[in-house]
Structure formats: C-alpha cells, structure tokens
C-alpha cells in the first residue's frame, strides 16, 4: 500500500468508476461513497467553468442539457492549465458536431461569439491606434499604410442569424431568451475590447470585406477598394473613422 498506488486507484475510481483497488485504502467500504462526491465535484467544476466561458450557450440550452454536454466534452478535451478562464477552446466545434439534430442547430455559432467575447475580455492590454498616430500621413501614404485589428478583436462570420439571440442571452440578468426560429443567414460580427468594455458590432457587407482585408494584412487602400467593389454603398472613410474612434486597431 503506497502513495503511487493510491493515486492511480483514486483516479480509476473517480474517472472510471472502478473502485476495487481503492478499497484497500479506505477504512471501510462505506468510505468509498465519497468517490461519487468527488466525481460530481469534478464534473460540476468543469461544467461551471464552461458555463462561465459560454454563458449564452448555457442560457439557450438550459442547465441540464449544458451539464450533459460539458460532461461529455471534458472526457474528450480535459483541461491542462490550472486557470479555467480560457478552458474549452474546442467547445464550439464540439457543439457543432453534437448539435446537428438538436432544436438549436445554431448553438455552435453562439458559442463562437461567446468565445470571442472571452478572448476580448482577457486579451493583453496593448495600446490601440489613435487618430493622432496617423494624422500626419497624407492620403497617398495612408492608402499604403497597414493597420491591424487590436489583439482583443475577433472577426467572425456565422452560418446562422444569431447576433440578436446571442446578445439577448449574454446579459447577466437575462432569463433564457430562446427564439422561436433562427434561420440560416450569414452575419459578420466584430468583437473587441475598448477601454475595458467589450464591444460588438454587426458589420455591413462593406465593413465585413474592409475589416477582413485589414485582418488579412492588406493596406488601407486595398482594403477600401475591396470594400467598395463588394458593396457600392459603403463609405469607407466613415467606417474606418468609427472603428478608429472605438479602439479597434492595434497601435
């Protein structure tokens, strides 16, 4: 009876439900009832961490369904890091596979938006590009200038029309706000952090092309041309100024 055997026996009991070897370490068979508590604590801790990271998913599918999903997910992708704030990077993909036949086939899109919110929340405090940083550039230099999205920013394209649904279910005091119908419709959404606040913006087609081009490393000039080609009604200077004013670019 040594410590190494104890550790493996305990993990076999908690994860695999095999309590035989652990019996040698317990004072009495009654003591093994505690294994159930540790198994519950473990799964609940994982579920709580995922619910904290994916709150809109939690509200939309409900506690019971969420815990079932979390219990399955933790077997596939258990956490390695001791900080659970970022746990569940693969959760949207997992939900994508699991949600095909469910009543919420759009749930993976909601999860991606939750993930982008989390990434924005914990991203480095890098400085944002300010109007003064580029004020000295003339229009020709500006067109050749590359600006990158702020490290807190994620540019997402959804398969389903989920932006409103996601927002309604992010609020801390929201009850489950389950829509009657969500239909397939692509949406482009930018999520980033500005002065400590997480911002989100449903992008117009021109904005989606513009920000997508900038994120891909193109210059302001070529991103603007691409945006105008994609949607004639887009006013590139206005969208750039608005994004600049709300700290969406990296300094």
């Amino acid at each position: 009876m040594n410590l190494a055997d104890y550790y493996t026996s305990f993990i076999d009991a908690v994860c695999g439900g095999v309590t035989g070897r652990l019996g040698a370490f317990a004072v009495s068979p009654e003591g093994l009832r505690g294994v159930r508590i540790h198994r519950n604590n473990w799964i609940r801790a994982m579920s709580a961490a995922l619910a904290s990271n994916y709150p809109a998913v939690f509200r939309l599918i409900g506690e019971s369904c969420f815990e079932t999903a979390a219990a399955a997910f933790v077997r596939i992708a258990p956490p390695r890091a001791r900080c659970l704030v970022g746990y569940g990077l693969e959760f949207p993909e997992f939900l994508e596979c699991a949600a095909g036949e469910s009543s919420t086939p759009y749930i993976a899109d909601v999860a991606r938006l939750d993930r982008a919110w989390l990434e924005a929340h914990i991203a480095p405090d890098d400085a944002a590009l300010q109007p003064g940083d580029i004020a000295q550039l003339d229009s020709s230099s500006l067109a050749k200038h590359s600006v990158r999205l702020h490290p807190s920013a994620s540019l997402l394209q959804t398969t389903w029309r989920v932006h409103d649904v996601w927002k309604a279910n992010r609020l801390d005091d929201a009850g489950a706000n389950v829509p009657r119908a969500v239909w397939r419709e692509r949406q482009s959404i930018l999520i980033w952090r500005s002065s400590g606040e997480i911002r989100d913006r449903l992008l117009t087609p021109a904005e989606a092309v513009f920000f997508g081009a900038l994120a891909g490393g193109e210059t302001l000039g070529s991103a603007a041309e691409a945006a105008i080609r994609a949607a004639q009604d887009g006013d590139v200077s206005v969208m750039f100024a608005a994004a600049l004013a709300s700290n969406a670019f990296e300094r």
Partner: protein
Amino acid sequence: MTALPVRCGIGLRPVHYRAALDCDADGLWFEVHPENYMVSGGPRHSWLEAIRSRRAISFHGVGASLCGPEPLEATHLARLRELIDRYQPTQVSEHVAWSAAGGQYFADLFPLPYTCEAARHLINRVDAFQSAIGRRILIENPSAYMALRGDMSEPEFLGLVCAGAGCGLLLDVNNVFVAANNLHLDAGAYLDAAPAELVEEIHLAGHDRDAAPGSLLLIDSHATPVAAPVWDLFDRLVRRIGPRPTLIERDAAIPPFGEMMTERARAEDVLVSRAKAA
C-alpha cells in the same frame, strides 16, 4: 511583508468588484484565487489593481495540486510568481489536496491518506513550492468525504508538515465541520487539538446537504451562508487560540455584497470580543 489585519476579510468575486472598491469598512481585506487572474490583460486585472491599491489581499491558490503525484507544474508556478510580483499579496495559501494527474486538471480537491510517506511527500512539495514562488505559505485543512487508512490524525499530519516545511496553517472551520460529519469525528475535539501557534488564518464558509437519497454527507459547497454550528466552532476556536485574520468565502449562489458584509460583521464581533478578552 506585513501580516494580514487580524480582522475579517471577504473572498473577492467579480460581481462585487465595484462594491468592494467603494466599501470604506475599517480593516476589510480581500482574498482571491490567483488562478482567476492568470490571464494576459483586461478588466479583471484593472479591478484587482484598484482594490490592491486600497486593501491587503491574500492569494488562496486552488490549482497547485500540492499533494499530487506529478512534479509541480512549471507554467503554473511561473504564472503564480508573476502575479505575486505584480500584486504583492500579504499572504499566500494553498490546499492540502491534489487536483491533477496524467497532465489533466480536475479542479476538485482530492484527499490524501495521512501516512508517513504522504507527510514526507508533502513536506518536499511545500518546500519546492515555497522556493519556486519565493514566499512562505499557509496550507489549508481539506473537507473530507471518505475515511482513508493512515498513520496519524489530520491535526497531527498538518502539524508534522508545517514543522517539516516551515509553513503555517490556514484552518477552515467549515471544512472541519463537514469532514467531522462525513467521517463521524468530533469537530470540537479536532479544533481543540489544532496546533494554535501554527494557525495564521481562519476560513468560514457554508455547506450543503448531499442531495442523494438517504445520504447523510455534507458538501463543502461555499454556496450558502456560514451555518450555526460552524459559527459556534469558530467562537470556540477563537476563544482558545485568540483572534486570527478570518475570511468569509462564497464561491457559488453569490449574494449581494451587503449580505457578505453582514456575515463579516458577525465574525468581527467574535474577533473583537476575543481580542478584548485577551
């Protein structure tokens, strides 16, 4: 490094950041789980910096897997050290438990048998942990749900480890009550046997009954107010060893900040009355 005030603190939760920062109560201090701040940036660091600028804080780790089978995790130690350098917590503590195996983190506090082998193992681990983070720590007695064979009682085990590793003891009165209920022990006798000179902090929290039909187990849920018998045990402990920095913990079903302050006031009454009596 100065010591924590011998007053009652509150476990800091993000939902209370604003109220915690605005609160002007005398002697109030806060405890945080450093794992929740192991992120690159963002508002939670801004809040903690603001609160740290006004209050003493303690780091109460939950992720070190201090009693675990594998070497202490290097990344975790490095991130903890960074946070300690940044925030200069007045106190650092961890649990007498393990929570990781095979590279997987379980986020639960698994028990250790109180054997001589386990005591030697934990002494070495606490020693390595303290060296890695550059701070002396307190170790906390765990809740218990299963009686394991061992060579000694929990107070004896904790005393041995503290002496061997040069660490102090964080005595969680709710954990004593929960463990005593679940393992059919005498919580009062446990507290009377706890080595007074080693106790440098006290924790108070709530528990729940196990929901399984027929179960008499209590769960250390931190989801309810401190229970009446735990208040009685706290009074008994402070009467014997004198006041110590005390913390009210709540990690789930978190009430408004004002309710936490009401519980704090009750603990403060005990600490102040015992300080006067001494």
